[in-house]
């Protein structure tokens, strides 16, 4: 049997961190992605420009570097402001990014850019007639979005979404550099302390494969759900 030398509970805790981080980041990324896609399709030039710069820059720079930049840089920026407030106005607001929140924000922010592209393609694939029918029956834009565009878009977005999720899941392994104790970090720490890397890294690899397999299954179910009404029956 695998002897985890007492690190078992911490590894499981780390796996919990990995999953929570990944899921919350995914949610944030989806929300950001929807905004970005909408902005990119809008006729408002400023929104369009901002969204384009966002997606281009983010996709041009490695996650790890972005994480360092956003995490440290972002914090130092926030602090500069709170320092000024403290020095000059004696206002002591204390804005503390906890590492977990920072991790979620950073990963969510990065993958929002990728999601934006996925959603944009998916929105454009929705038949315009479906949307016109919604408008023609007196639906407001918001209602059309919620009841027609979104559910139909999801069908086209899911394959890309599932890809992005897999990449995102693996990206969470990088958060140890900003001080989060995910399962990779626990495994790395344990292998340093015990000098037995295989014992800890292999279970972690298996855990990732497990999560990947489960999510593949979930995505297949989702795809089936959103495919209802399309294609042959």
């Amino acid at each position, binding site marked *: 049997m695998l002897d985890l030398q007492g690190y078992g509970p911490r590894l499981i805790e780390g796996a919990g961190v990995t999953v929570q981080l990944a899921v919350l980041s995914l949610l944030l990324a989806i929300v950001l992605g929807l905004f970005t896609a909408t902005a990119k399709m809008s*006729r408002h030039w400023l929104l369009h420009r901002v969204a384009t710069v966002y997606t281009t820059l983010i996709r041009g720079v490695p996650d790890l570097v972005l994480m360092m930049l956003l995490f440290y840089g972002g914090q130092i920026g926030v602090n500069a402001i709170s320092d000024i407030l403290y020095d000059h106005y004696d206002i002591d607001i204390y804005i503390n990014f906890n590492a977990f929140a920072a991790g979620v924000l950073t990963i969510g922010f990065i993958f929002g850019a990728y999601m934006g592209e996925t959603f944009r393609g998916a929105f454009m694939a929705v*038949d315009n*007639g*479906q949307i*016109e*029918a*919604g*408008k*023609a*029956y*007196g*639906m*407001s834009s918001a*209602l059309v979005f919620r*009841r*027609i565009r979104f*559910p*139909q878009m999801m*069908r086209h977005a899911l394959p890309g979404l599932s890809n992005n999720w897999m990449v995102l899941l693996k990206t969470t392994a990088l958060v140890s550099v900003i001080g989060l104790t995910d399962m990779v970090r626990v495994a790395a720490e344990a292998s340093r302390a015990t000098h037995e890397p295989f014992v800890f890294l292999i279970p972690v690899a298996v855990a990732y494969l497990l999560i990947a397999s489960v999510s593949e299954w979930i995505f297949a179910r989702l795809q089936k759900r*959103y495919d*209802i*009404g*399309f*294609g*042959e*029956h």
Partner: protein
Amino acid sequence: MAATPLEVRNIKKRFGDTEVLKGLSLEAQKGDVITLIGASGSGKSTFLRCMNLLEQPDDGEIILHGDAIRFKHTRHGREPADWKQVVQMRAKLSMVFQNFNLWAHMTLLQNIIEAPIHVLGKSRKEATDHAHALLERVGLSARANAYPAQMSGGQQQRGAIARALAMDPEVMLFDEPTSALDPELVGDVLKVMRDLANEGRTMVVVTHEMSFARDVSSKVIYLHQGLVEEAGSPDDVLGNPQSPRLKQFLTPNY
């Protein structure tokens, strides 16, 4: 006296450099069935789409029951001043499309109750009961839980008509409702439309079915290059055309 359900005046519309509608007017009194005919590209669809503002007319007025749509001018051209007003107005003008445009991710029943519940604010129960009555009427009771992709074109179009009826519209707009159908399926749809006409629905219909226009409509309008070339009772316009163009247009169909 009740106000006119739908009145449009002097509608103009250009796409880029070409003026597609050059000032078109139309008045639909309660119970009127107005058919729009004309060659391909004459502007029939565009005119119809301007009526419920799926296209924004560059000029002209649209008045429902004496209530005129308000416009404003923006950088992008003329636009409705109050989108709320447009949304309310569209709920009273139900459009039936050439390609049906039933929502693909919903069953037929869901398609029909969607707008009554979310736009008119009906209860689900009430909407569903009404929907079943309508399905009965268009002969689709058995297909309530089918998805559009599982139905034939004719069934889809009858479903789309039921969806339009579910809004209890003041005026129904039809854009070539049978032209995407196989010839065998056209009859069912036309029959449903004829019933609607007989029961006194106000309708504006773009069609190529001359026999339908002749039998059912109270008024026929022949469009040519964005202008009304001839208009009047079906007997006058179809039976005794004046302009050479309309004569030529009618010839191959006889």
